[in-house]
């Protein structure tokens, strides 16, 4: 009988249950998605650029588990609050307490199991869709990734079953503690506004110290290695939670103290709502901040690895193309590219070697890379040494004579005359007289540089193919052109880029469901406030404005702190990325746009609950 009753109660609140279920399903599916990557050792080790990648994923798993733990606990206390009043009523009608608590326990577990099944199904689907989409987008092929991955599935199932059991026990304990009257009047209990003392100020300072330690360990990651990751993980997570629990309420309180601002229009109400909301949302906001940091961080890292491809390629080769004796078809292709710099060097091929005309080299010297230190990466210079006539490279060692080839020129000649063109033939520098005497076929080496290497990828590809056929090389023969450098770098980073984007999207979805869930579940408590304000004559537009303002701040704080985390956290990658901050604004801008859209949706949904359209 009681079971029947409780089923009907469940049906009457189906909207709230859908919100609850959606939140749970989301967190489960994302946890699963993360695990499909994290537990697939073979895949991540084969595809990541970062050495201790497995460790990074372990750290990520711990963080995600903490975040999920808070989320599930909150969701289940929401479940309890949904049922309190009804259970109280059953008890006043004479139902026994242990029966009610058993009912509550069952309900928590059943809801958990339902969401677990749906969540894993959704997770498999999402992993499949996002995975194949990203692979296509990034031209990255790997059979190693499986959307349906049994070990991840088992871990997800165990983790959430345990979580649901814990929260079911917690709900039961809560039920056992309260009296019938408290249950019946559960919805009229006013929200307490906590008073804050010196302890809060101390904790606020502590939170900032923790964050600073975390930031420092991320900046000095190169020295701290794995220890840095662990320190950052602990201090930043705890610092963020502490910051939101202590520092933020203080800020809002300070804002509230400004009498002039408060006593203007609806501000008193807006800031009071905000104050109250920030107090009840501290843990959720901290969770959201961590998720923003993880999401924006993953996307930014993914993009940086993508940008890094071009930085690495440009740093390895200054000239986009080196071409010997271009054919007509090659010339046509070259004409389509807006070169900013072009060099031509004449040479003669004789049986003794290849003679380069010194005047050409001296008059238009090619730029070579400065490879002195890490800071010089990507910078170029003109060879500054004198080029002695008769200097030579390659050829048989014991045949070597003539003056020493200076290092700079050695490098320049290696570039002008790539190994694959004439194999190991000797290269000799000849002045005009010597050059004129040499009997042999004349040739020309051509160097070209444009600013848009990545805009003409297909052209480079064609040129490479033509060179191979011209030089009678097989098509799978490796030639060290800039384009082949590019393809190998891209293949090398694609796995990391893929992981970054994949996780970024997953965390973004979880962040969205987390904050929206919390705001919407609390909304029903606000209905009577807005109704009262409308009764005393506050215009709808003014109420709307108040909602936008209030939620703006709620969204603002996690965004600011999350992005600070990301910006400082990117420093971690400086050991592997040349410029971790190159174009960092782009992923952050993309992230902010998505975040803003999501803010508007939340406000609209919230408005739909607290201020329904006219009857």
């Amino acid at each position, binding site marked *: 009988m009681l079971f029947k009753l409780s089923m009907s109660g469940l049906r009457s609140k189906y909207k709230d249950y859908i919100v609850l279920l959606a939140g749970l399903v989301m967190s489960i599916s994302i946890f699963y998605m993360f695990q499909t990557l994290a537990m697939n050792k073979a895949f991540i080790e084969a595809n990541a650029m970062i050495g201790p990648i497995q460790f990074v994923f372990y750290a990520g798993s711990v963080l995600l588990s903490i975040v999920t733990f808070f989320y599930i606990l909150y969701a289940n206390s929401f479940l309890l609050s949904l049922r309190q009043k009804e259970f109280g009523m059953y008890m006043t009608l004479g139902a026994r307490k242990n029966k009610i608590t058993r009912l509550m326990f069952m309900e928590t577990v059943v809801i958990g199991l339902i969401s677990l099944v749906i969540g894993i199904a959704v997770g498999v689907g999402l992993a499949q869709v996002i995975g194949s989409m990203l692979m296509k987008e990034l031209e990255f092929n790997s059979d190693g990734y499986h959307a349906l991955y049994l070990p991840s599935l088992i871990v997800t199932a165990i983790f959430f079953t345990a979580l649901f059991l814990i929260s079911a026990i917690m709900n039961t304990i809560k039920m056992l503690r309260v009296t019938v009257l408290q249950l019946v009047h559960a919805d009229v209990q*006013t*929200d*307490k*506004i906590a008073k804050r003392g010196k302890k809060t100020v101390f904790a606020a300072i502590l939170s900032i110290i923790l964050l600073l330690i975390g930031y420092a360990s991320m900046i000095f990651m190169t020295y701290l290695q794995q220890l840095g990751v662990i320190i950052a993980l602990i201090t930043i997570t705890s610092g963020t939670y502490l910051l939101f629990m202590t520092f933020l309420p203080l800020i809002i309180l300070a804002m509230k103290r400004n*009498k*002039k601002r*408060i*006593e*203007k*229009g*609806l*501000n*008193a*109400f807006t800031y*009071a*709502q905000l*104050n*109250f909301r920030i107090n009840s949302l501290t843990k959720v906001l901290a969770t959201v901040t961590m998720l923003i940091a993880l999401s924006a961080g993953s996307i930014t890292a993914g993009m940086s690895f993508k940008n890094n491809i071009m930085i690495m390629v440009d740093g390895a080769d200054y000239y986009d193309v080196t071409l010997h004796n271009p054919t007509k078809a090659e010339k046509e292709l070259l004409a389509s590219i807006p070169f900013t710099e072009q060099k031509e060097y004449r040479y003669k091929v004789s049986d003794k070697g290849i003679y380069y005309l010194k005047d050409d080299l001296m008059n238009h010297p090619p730029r070579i890379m400065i490879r002195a230190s890490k800071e010089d990466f990507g910078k170029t210079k003109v060879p500054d040494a004198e080029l002695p006539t008769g200097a030579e490279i390659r050829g048989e060692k014991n045949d070597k004579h003539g003056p020493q080839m200076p290092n700079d020129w050695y490098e320049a000649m290696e570039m002008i005359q790539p190994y694959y063109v004439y194999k190991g033939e000797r290269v000799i520098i000849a002045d005009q007289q010597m050059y004129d005497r040499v009997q042999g076929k004349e040739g020309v080496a051509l160097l070209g540089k444009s600013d848009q290497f990545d805009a003409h990828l297909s052209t480079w590809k064609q040129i490479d193919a033509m060179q191979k056929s011209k030089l009678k090389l097989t098509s799978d023969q490796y030639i060290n052109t800039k384009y082949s450098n590019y393809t190998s770098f891209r293949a090398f980073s694609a796995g990391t880029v893929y992981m970054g984007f994949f996780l970024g999207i997953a965390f973004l979805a979880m962040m969205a469901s987390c904050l929206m869930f919390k705001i919407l579940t609390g909304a029903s408590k606000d209905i*009577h*406030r807005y109704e*009262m*304000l*409308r*009764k*005393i*004559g*506050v*215009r*709808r*537009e*003014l109420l709307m404005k108040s909602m936008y303002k209030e939620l703006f701040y709620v969204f603002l704080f996690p965004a600011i702190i999350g992005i600070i985390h990301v910006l400082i956290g990117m420093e971690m990658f400086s050991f592997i990325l040349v410029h971790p901050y190159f174009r960092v604004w782009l992923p952050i801008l993309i992230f902010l746009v998505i975040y803003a859209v999501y803010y508007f949706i939340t406000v609209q949904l919230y408005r739909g609950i607290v201020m329904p359209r*006219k009857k």
Partner: protein
Amino acid sequence: MKTPVVEVSNVKKVYGKAGENQSYALNGVSFTIHEGEFVGIMGPSGSGKTTLLNVISTLDQATEGMVRIAGSDITKMKQGALSDFRSQKLGFIFQDFNLLENLTIYENIALPLSLQGVTSRQIGPKVQKVAETLGITAILHKNPAEVSGGQKQRCAAARALVHEPAIILGDEPTGALDSKNATSLLTAMTNLNQEHGVSIMLVTHDAYSASYCERILFIQDGEMYKEIHRQSSREDFYREILDVLADLGTTKA
């Protein structure tokens, strides 16, 4: 002759679509409240008194008829204008106080003023003055959750009063109060009416609360049933009200 504050003429409120089961919540009610009057509206449950209050307080629209408050015809106003009208000309006291529990009492009372764009400097003295009148100066800095029901209702009265509305509308304001608090609130309201000339309209089904009024309108089944004026002491008036209520029950049957 004093100027009328509320003029209600032939107001009808119909629920249900034409042709279907129509029910008349109000069926041609007419009356006038003059400036400085303390009027009670009584009637049994389902008599239409709440509907009447909603129509007068512009929360609901009459199907037919005209309602004028402080000279403006509110039946012809748009939604936004009605909001402004409510915030400027009307003061509300509800049964369940309807204070915002996340604001202090001071902020609750100041809200109607800041909504009208009164500067922060002028708000302080006005709140203080109205708080003195209602005897709640000592609790201004507290949160609603920290004070008693009676104090809460005085605060609600202060909020209804602070912007000097044309009329105060009370919807069962003593409904959630014990008798001691109810008496003290009613005395305060009488005081406001007599010393400060505030017009008050009180909707109640409690004869004791109603006996503080000067004039009482009884409605039944959406129609005006009877109107009585207080001539002698409050106690006599109370008995008179009870008599009318007793009649109300019998005539119907």
